[in-house]
């Protein structure tokens, strides 16, 4: 999941670099990304067979966690009780609040090396997320490591390193954000997704050709006639090579044809 957030943040740089406002608001979105993703999954659960909390439950739980996180921490501290905080409250405390602070900070400063700054911030986000994700694991037991010791150790280390990179990005003038293109990434990802979704039900022949053509849209230089010809030949070659020559089990034909 940490990686999913890293991937979302790819959007950070899609905007022109100089605007701290854009950067700050994207970090803000990043701060709420886990909650939003859980909400999306819950919404998907309405249609498909996914178990878990319903969307309304998700909204309610996170809203109350976000609003009461600090008081409940104070309360726990005052009472000195060992009762553990709920995972939602911990998410707010460990991940969301610090990132909101970073977003506010971003709004106020103008980083001189945006490439480093936003790179460091995202690493910090990943580290915080990992710290939250490993917060339910057991820590040190006497002198022996628990399951959570090493993740927490490296999580803290990454947090520090990310912060250092971000600070360098604020202080030292460095590279601007590189420009992102949407066409290549979008269609290559779509092709990969198509492959993953349809390889089982539709088989290699249809899936291979479809993914090939979708990926081909990713380049503006594609010429359709040759792409189709090459795609057909390549798929046919793969259909011979992988299942027959190399003996890998792989469905060739659509499932409905076989039934």
């Amino acid at each position, binding site marked *: 999941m940490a990686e999913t957030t890293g991937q979302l943040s790819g959007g950070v740089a899609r905007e022109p670099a100089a605007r701290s406002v854009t950067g700050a608001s994207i970090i803000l979105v990043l701060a709420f990304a886990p909650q939003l993703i859980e909400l999306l999954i819950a919404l998907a659960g309405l249609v498909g067979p996914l178990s878990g909390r319903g969307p309304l439950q998700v909204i309610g739980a996170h809203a109350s966690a976000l609003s009461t996180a600090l008081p409940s921490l104070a309360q726990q501290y005052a009472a000195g009780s060992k009762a553990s905080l709920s995972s939602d409250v911990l998410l707010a405390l460990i991940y969301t609040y610090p990132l909101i602070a970073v977003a506010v900070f971003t709004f106020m400063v103008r980083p001189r090396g945006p490439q480093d700054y936003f790179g460091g911030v995202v690493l910090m986000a990943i580290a915080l997320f990992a710290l939250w994700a490993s917060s339910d694991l057991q820590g040190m037991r006497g002198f022996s490591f628990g399951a959570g010791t090493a993740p927490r150790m490296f999580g803290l280390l990454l947090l520090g390193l990310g912060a250092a990179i971000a600070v360098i990005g604020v202080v030292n003038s460095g590279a601007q954000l590189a420009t992102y293109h949407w066409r290549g990434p979008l269609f290559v990802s779509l092709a990969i997704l198509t492959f993953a979704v349809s390889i089982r039900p539709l088989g290699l022949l249809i899936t291979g050709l479809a*993914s090939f053509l979708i990926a081909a849209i990713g380049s503006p230089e594609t010429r359709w006639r040759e792409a189709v010809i090459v795609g057909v030949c390549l798929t046919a070659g793969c259909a011979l090579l992988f299942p027959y020559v*190399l003996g890998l089990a792989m469905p060739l034909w659509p499932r409905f044809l076989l039934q």
Partner: protein
Amino acid sequence: MDLFANLAHGFGVALSPINLLMCLIGALVGTLVGVLPGIGTIATVAMLLPITFGLQPVGALIMLAGIYYGAQYGGSTTSILVNIPGEATSVVTALDGFQMAKQGRAGPALAIAAIGSFFAGCVATVLIAILGAPLTKLALAFGPAEYFSLMVLGLIFAVVLAKGSVLKAIAMIVLGLLMSMVGSDIETGVSRMAFNIPELADGLGFATVAMGVFGFAEIIRNLDAGAEMDRDLVQKKITGLMPTRKDLKDSTPAILRGTVLGSILGILPGGGAVIASFAAYTLEKKLAKDPSRFGRGAIEGVAAPESANNAAAQTSFIPLLTLGIPPNAVMALMVGAMTIHGIVPGPQVMQKQPDLVWGMIASMWIGNLMLIIINLPLVGIWVRLLRVPYRLMFPSIVIFCAIGIYSVNNAPVDVVLAGAFGLVGYWLIKHDFEPAPLLLGMVLGPLMEENLRRALLISRGDWSVFLTRPLSAVLLAIAAGLLVLAVLPTLRRKRDEVFVESEG
């Protein structure tokens, strides 16, 4: 002597028809991958992993090894002829190699690259054979503390020698270590950071991540470049392969130095072919009487890095076979291939699987011989391959990668994950983070954690164990020294200079 008996045994294994065929396939695929920019060794080995299911372990590893060193040869061809390094290891070769080609001396450049690679390959083969047994004995003296310190040293090496910011490289390693912890804990079996997603319960697959950040991300980035990918080829016919006597005289010491340097850098964990070629080029430039010749077609600038990368590609098998530590990402995939066949890499492999180890070592020499034949007379064919336009090549690579990743576990989720990591890799490139240290961290993560925990358990929680055990202390001291050197501003400036020049 034992050594010769072992080598003879190895040749007996490697010369069986099926293994010869595997070696040839590996060398051919390696050359192909080396020639084609846009698909690297790591992605290829990851892609071919599932294929090795159906093969004998010896044949499978011979083929995968062939791809690795074959790519070093192939990369030099395109660097020299068209100034497009097909592999990162040949980036520096392009500097002087392409200049030589422009001066009409492409033939000698290619020949020297091949001769240098062949010589380095032979030396490295012998070196593996000689060093294997004693290092295995040393490995038995290694406790968990020593293993941990050795891996720290390896990671620091990777940082020091990586290009760009030291801080960013360390951050990438730590991110890799963190990612390696997803999945069940080795000791307690508790699921860590997996969010009850069944596919994450076993952890993030190394091949999946490698394919994402090296395969898919590379494609996406190349698409950004768009029309720049159209390559203008040197259309001139290559005439006269034979180097002159002066060429041979100039390049002999360079080849020797490159071989030595490459062999050393290959053995060290964290090293590898890329670093070796850069280091060898820098060394030649430092030692040259007239450094200004470099970048203008100095034959030493071709001879040294090409020998070094080939030597390093082969000697990096030494830590894998003797200590069970993969020194770089390709070797980590080799571990994957060995695990598929139920072989646990480590000191015991040499004794328990002599067929495998010595057969592979012998096959390297045979493979090098094959590569000379594949490369020199067939240069024309490889160059023609470059004319396949990228707009047709990249969808094909996407499909091959997807099929490869899918067939590792027959799991569609793996394909989606690889795609996601492709986007992560694209983001990393855009923010000038190097993906190689990330992979190394991911590879060494589980081993490091296990040994750290074991060392601390044995010492009853006493952290000073890493400093009181002499071997471990020495390893850590070297690591600390290296890190200090890397952070020192003077050296860093020089280091940057080297890389800036080599990119220009």
